[in-house]
């Protein structure tokens, strides 16, 4: 950028400094200009003139405040119930309320004029659109958790099957606790057979119910989300299964290796027998050569051989 005839490099920092000074001078000049515009708008507002209003109507302001509080409550609820996952059970009330608040914003009409309702000024008048973003985030989370799956149709409270499942889940947890109580914590992992034996019934029931719910769900639903159960149920089952299979090591042992090896080696042996016997007993297929009718000349043979000599 520097002109090629520039003799000394010391000039460059000086130039930069000068530019900086220029920018600094421009800065303060801008702020008063903004303030001026704001004042102008306020004057216009008090004069009852239409303009880009810097202030919300009071009704809208209260709606916005309600939404803010609702989203804070929901966020808190979601955060607190993140592990172990109890989102759908604990937060569906908050979520429903927030939905209602958002709806009332989206539908509310301010009293000044048709074109200046709350929906417009809250939801769409700036680039960030924070209210929309928040509500989208909550909706997406709810969708991803697939909570609708374990709530009643009107989403007031848990559905019957979920209640039943959670009931069984609690029962099995109690069973695990009960059976582990007498034992020391630092037991080696293969000493959990007591638990496996005693809680097998409850666990199997729980597992079956879960599989049943999953099957029902898969038959009923079409969309991608409905392939999953709601996150609460899934997580509860995951925890139980992990306890059962990993911690207590109750999953099925690798059994009957000997018969499997016997049967498979028998089957693998068959082709060898087949190929050997067909090699030894089958008559090899012979081809009958046909003598072509062709001129035979020495030239022919010589021609070909020439190429290799």
């Amino acid at each position, binding site marked *: 950028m520097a002109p090629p005839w520039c003799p000394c490099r010391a000039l460059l920092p000086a130039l930069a400094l000068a530019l900086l000074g220029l920018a600094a001078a421009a800065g303060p000049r801008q702020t008063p200009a903004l303030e001026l515009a704001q004042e102008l708008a306020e004057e216009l507002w008090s004069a009852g003139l239409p303009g880009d209003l810097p202030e919300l109507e009071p009704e809208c302001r209260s709606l916005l405040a309600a939404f803010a509080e609702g989203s804070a409550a929901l966020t808190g609820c979601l955060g607190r119930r993140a592990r172990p996952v109890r989102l759908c059970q604990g937060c569906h009330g908050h979520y429903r309320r927030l939905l209602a608040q958002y709806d009332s914003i989206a539908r509310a009409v301010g009293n000044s004029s048709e074109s200046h309702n709350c929906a417009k000024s809250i939801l769409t008048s700036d680039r960030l659109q924070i209210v929309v973003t928040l509500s989208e985030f909550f909706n997406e989370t709810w969708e991803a958790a697939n909570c609708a799956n374990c709530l009643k149709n009107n989403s007031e409270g848990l559905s019957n099957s979920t209640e039943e499942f959670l009931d069984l889940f609690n029962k099995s947890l109690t069973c695990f606790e009960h059976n582990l109580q007498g034992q020391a914590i630092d037991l080696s992992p293969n000493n959990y057979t007591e638990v496996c034996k005693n809680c097998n019934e409850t666990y199997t029931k729980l*597992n079956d119910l879960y599989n049943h719910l999953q099957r029902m769900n898969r038959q009923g639903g*079409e969309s991608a989300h409905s392939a999953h159960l709601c996150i609460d149920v*899934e997580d509860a*089952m*995951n925890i139980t*299964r*992990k306890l*059962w*299979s*990993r911690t207590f090591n109750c*999953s*099925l*042992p*690798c*059994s*009957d290796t000997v*018969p*499997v090896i*016997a*049967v*498979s080696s028998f*089957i*693998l042996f*068959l*082709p060898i027998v*087949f*190929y050997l016997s*067909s*090699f030894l007993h*089958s008559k*090899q*297929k*012979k*081809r*009958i*050569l*046909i*003598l*072509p*009718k*062709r*001129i*035979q*000349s*020495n*030239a*022919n*043979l010589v*021609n*070909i*051989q*020439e*190429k*290799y*000599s």
Partner: protein
Amino acid sequence: QLTPSSFLRIGQLSNVDLNEDIRELETEVPRQRPNEIPHNEKLLSLKYESLDYDNSENQLFLEEERRINHAAFRTVEIKRWVICAMIGILTGLVACFIDIVVENLAGLKYRVVKDNIDKFTAKGGLSFSLLLWATLNASVVMVGSLIVAFIEPVAAGSGIPQIKCYLNGVKIPHVVRLKTLVIKVCGVILSVVGGLAVGKEGPMIHSGSVIAAGISQGRSTSLKRDFKIFEYFRRDTEKRDFVSAGAAAGVSAAFGAPVGGVLFSLEEGASFWNQFLTWRIFFASMISTFTLNSVLSVYHGNAWDLSSPGLINFGRFDSEKMGYTIQEIPIFIFMGVVGGILGALFNALNYWLTMFRIRYIHRPCLQVVEAMLVAAVTATVGFVMIYCSRDCQPIQGSSVAYPLQLFCADGEYNSMATAFFNTPEKSVVNLFHDPPGSYNPMTLGMFTLMYFFLACWTYGLTVSAGVFIPSLLIGAAWGRLFGISLSYLTKGSIWADPGKYALMGAAAQLGGIVRMTLSLTVIMMEATGNVTYGFPIMLVLMTAKIVGDYFVEGLYDMHIQLQSVPFLHWEAPVTSHSLTAREVMSTPVTCLRRIERVGTVVDILSDTSSNHNGFPVVESNPDTTQVAGLRGLILRSQLIVLLKHKVFVERANLSLVQRRLKLKDFRDAYPRFPPIQSIHVSQDERECMIDLSEFMNPSPYTVPQEASLPRVFKLFRALGLRHLVVVDNRNEVVGMVTRKDLARYRLGKEGLEELSLAQT
């Protein structure tokens, strides 16, 4: 360095009566080697004949062409388009049928086996599940193999070699019959359901060709129905054009690759090609993929979604991770080298196996038993692999169709089972798209190894099944393994996505086995739906082909050669310039005179030792010992029609009411001309004369004796000839060049080789 013994055979086989002018060239040769030899690759079978791609331009033909006016030609053109549309629609429907039936039957089988395994895992006694699985597979494959072995053996295999031969101009018996189509479709369904390491894509190409050949004729000789339409197209020339359209439609239905289909036809049958034909074939391909698409969308419940264009859908490759950078190109090329080597190994193993099969397992019942054994072993290997695998993956969030738990913890499935306990198509897509970490390297390694041998063992069985999908699967498995190790080496860089390498590995393996270039690149590109992959796929296929060709030739060419088909390659062998037509031709030639005695014709046709199809017609000359000037060429099929209709000179004089023979009479007999034995000629009629001048082709192609082999070859290949008469400077017939005379010369390992003719 050369032993002359390899060429001695040429001399030993010659025992011809020669004309005066060439007798002095004959040498004394030791006679009669043992003429029964075991099958080998250096044979040409007499079973195969050429197609008559060149029109016989006789008087009847010229008269008919003159009668057809301009408007009628336009109707013919419109009919061609209608036929192409019908080819596309029917091919698409057949593909849908195969897809739906396979999906349901395979689903049923896997559910039954899965329930059984689940039951016996808890109770013990898994060997029963193994037996159940193996028995189910073996019995399904038995049915599939029975119908192929006993009803229509030509329906075995993928059908691509056969169609390649057909487009090359070789008439493979039964290859485009309705019966073949039925057996092919049922056979494919049964072999895929039977759990063999096969795919249903290759056979689609054959099916499309049969459909094309059937529709374009407007009748079915198998069903004895003649719809009296499209009679104009009843000859080899037209039929072959439609067959190439059918092959393209088949490719397009199989892979959802209409352009790839057109290029496949171009690559395999390109010597007879023009722009209009290309455009028509493209039309047929598009219609075919569109039909498949819309019917499958209705079947899957989202009508008119049109998002499943082929039997195999590679899924979408457009996420961020699937991109590639210039640094990866050397890696892809390296994968191409690996694919070429593995492909060559596959082909070499399959070569030995096929040779063994041709020599020893030629009885149909043995072939059925072999197929059953392969099916049972495939199931067993799969079961043992699953049983021994300790690779468990969480079931949550994965898209496994039939998750097998076995000894995994609850909520997890056996990862080996996704590869083995599934139809191969689904396994391929899983390997492409499952998120990183779904497969353990050990699992993939064992799977690649086992599947490689299984697929190699399976190809060439007497079942109808293709090799595309197994190759893709092998390649995808080692490609994914490669990708995993790469990301391990680079400490988990974002660009080392195993799915991408699985795709490149699949391309490399397939290219290394079948050695297709242009069409395969486009097919892969269209199947992935990502044009930017064109470049790496091209590089991979190119490398795989170069490396593979260094060792052995492609699988299809190898099988064509093992079948002893007289296949003409693009060009004559490079070192063949010193050979001339004189050395190549067959001589002496059985000639007919222009007005010939019926008895002579019948005797010549019934002679079993010389199964000639074309006879040069020479000027009637009282002196029969002298070879007279060439006047035309007549085909066996024409002679048979003439004999059947008793077009004798004497009869024409006797009864004027007898109508003149028309071109239609020849067409009605096409393509199954009756054998000469079925035509009865009485003793009196033998003395009649037959006038051939109206029916022969008066302007056959001829070459002088001095023409070089490459020149003869070029003429033959470019015009699609069946007979090429060799004449001397007095226009007297000295010899005849046919397809087998040219296909004999081949460039082998040690230079120019000559194949021998054999009865098979």
